């Protein structure tokens, strides 16, 4: 297991400890998350789900080092997340594809390699390979405006993998595409991920999506966000598209829905 260097004495991947974060001015601040503990081990694919406004995105942005916690600590591989960000170990996929309109597909995927060049990167696959794996081999030199929404999101995924980050943080990346595209996107993501199984934290509001993708589904409670339940998904990998309709998936999905219902009722 020659998995990515760093601190690999333990399986410690992403660790959020007693994290609190509020937004807005003092006095009228809104608590987004409070007292949140979350651990995601190396090589695990974890989906974060919860009622809207529960702070899912905040958790992800804390993990990406895009916002700073008011209290508690956010660590990646035993070091502070700010340091991990400086070392370019974080692959962030925002909700919108966030592509550069003036660059070709290929040059968009190369963007992470062009900035912060002091950080050592260890890409396992070339941008061309990744784009090919995501079915974009024929549009390398097209511009984003010439692509469909689903294709743009594939480019964003290729871009996140392109520099071989040790962790992938995805913020509802498939929320803007239609259901059919969405289904094939998750299996393409799984196929690309399967090759070197990095730590993934994936925010979604689709129960089926969470179950099909994850090793573990973490349910957050609303206002302030806290971990309400952790549901392991013991399905074999690699997972195929046929799995979507299987009874195993639906059994776990039922469990997740139950946890979600409990959380929503609790907050009323």
């Amino acid at each position, binding site marked *: 297991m020659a998995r990515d260097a760093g601190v690999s004495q333990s399986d410690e991947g992403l660790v959020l400890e007693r994290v609190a974060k509020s937004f807005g001015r003092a006095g009228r601040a809104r608590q987004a998350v409070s007292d949140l503990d979350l651990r995601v081990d190396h090589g695990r694919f974890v989906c974060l789900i919860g009622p809207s406004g529960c702070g899912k995105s905040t958790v992800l942005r804390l993990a*990406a*080092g*895009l916002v700073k916690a008011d209290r508690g600590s956010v660590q990646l591989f035993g070091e502070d997340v700010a340091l991990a*960000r*400086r070392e*370019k170990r*974080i*692959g*962030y996929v*925002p*909700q*919108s594809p*966030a*592509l*550069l*309109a*003036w660059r070709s597909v290929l040059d968009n995927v190369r*963007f*992470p390699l*062009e*900035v*912060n060049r002091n*950080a050592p990167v260890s890409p396992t696959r070339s941008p061309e390979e990744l784009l090919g794996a995501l079915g974009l081999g024929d549009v390398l030199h097209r*511009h*984003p*405006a*010439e692509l469909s929404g689903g294709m743009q999101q594939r480019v964003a995924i290729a871009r996140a993998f392109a520099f071989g980050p040790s962790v992938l*943080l995805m913020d509802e990346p498939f929320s803007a595409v239609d259901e059919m595209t969405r289904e094939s996107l998750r299996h393409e993501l799984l196929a690309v991920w399967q090759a070197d199984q990095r730590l993934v934290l994936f925010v979604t509001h689709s129960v089926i999506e969470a179950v099909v993708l994850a090793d573990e589904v973490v349910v957050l409670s609303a206002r302030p966000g806290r971990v309400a339940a952790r549901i392991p998904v013991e399905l074999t990998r690699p997972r195929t598209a046929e799995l979507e309709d299987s009874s195993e998936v639906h059994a776990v999905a039922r469990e997740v829905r139950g946890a979600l219902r409990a959380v929503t009722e609790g907050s009323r």
Partner: protein
Amino acid sequence: MSGTALEVTERRSLWRGARRWFPAVIALGFAAGVWQLIAIHNPLVLPTVSSVFARLAGQPGLFAKDAGATLEEVAVGAAAAFAAAFVIAVAMSELPIVERAMMPLAVALNVTPVVAIAPALTVMLGLSATPRYVVAAIVAFFPFLINALVGLRSVDPAVLELAQSLDASRAEVLWRVRLPSSLPFLFAGARICLPLAVVGAVVAELTTSGPSTGLGYLIESAESTYDLPEIFAAVLVLAVIGVALTVLLILAERTLVARRRGQA
């Protein structure tokens, strides 16, 4: 056979072009006809279209020389204005304190009728073409500054977050994200500001006593001899200059910016 096919497409696109311009050509011809009719009956108020063209054709060298002088003032003034406005816009977008310090001054400069300081510029800078460069530059400066500033800030926040997640430096974000994303706004600014620079140059020629060249100077000297056809001929040349500059900018924008809109 491919040659024939090409010819057919070419002819087709020519025809399409002709159909597109047809209404404008008709309207222009109609306006010229009406003008000519009115002018024939009021020779002291309006020169006939034919007399204006006759004047142009009679001394093409004179008009070309003065058009060249005006164009030079526009080019120098606009280039200086664009360069200064762009540098200041970058400083403003990077450092909010620069914006707070300079924006009120820029706004004040914008609302000041520059014509009012043109005579002073002659006193200050002498009987050279410099005051004309300066007036052209001042007129073109502000709208370009605003456009450049808006352009530099037009970046999708998600893209900025992505760059932040990679710990991209400010210089990298400026060079690889902000500058390219401001490009369409720079073109929009230039399309507003180049015609403004023409206005500035002509106004300066009319009001400052610099060299005896430029279309504004030509108009002023024609005025003293009540030579209406010459004045209108000079105005016509100015109109052609304005249209030509706009067309050039549109062509440049098409080659540089169009691809990002998926119109390659």
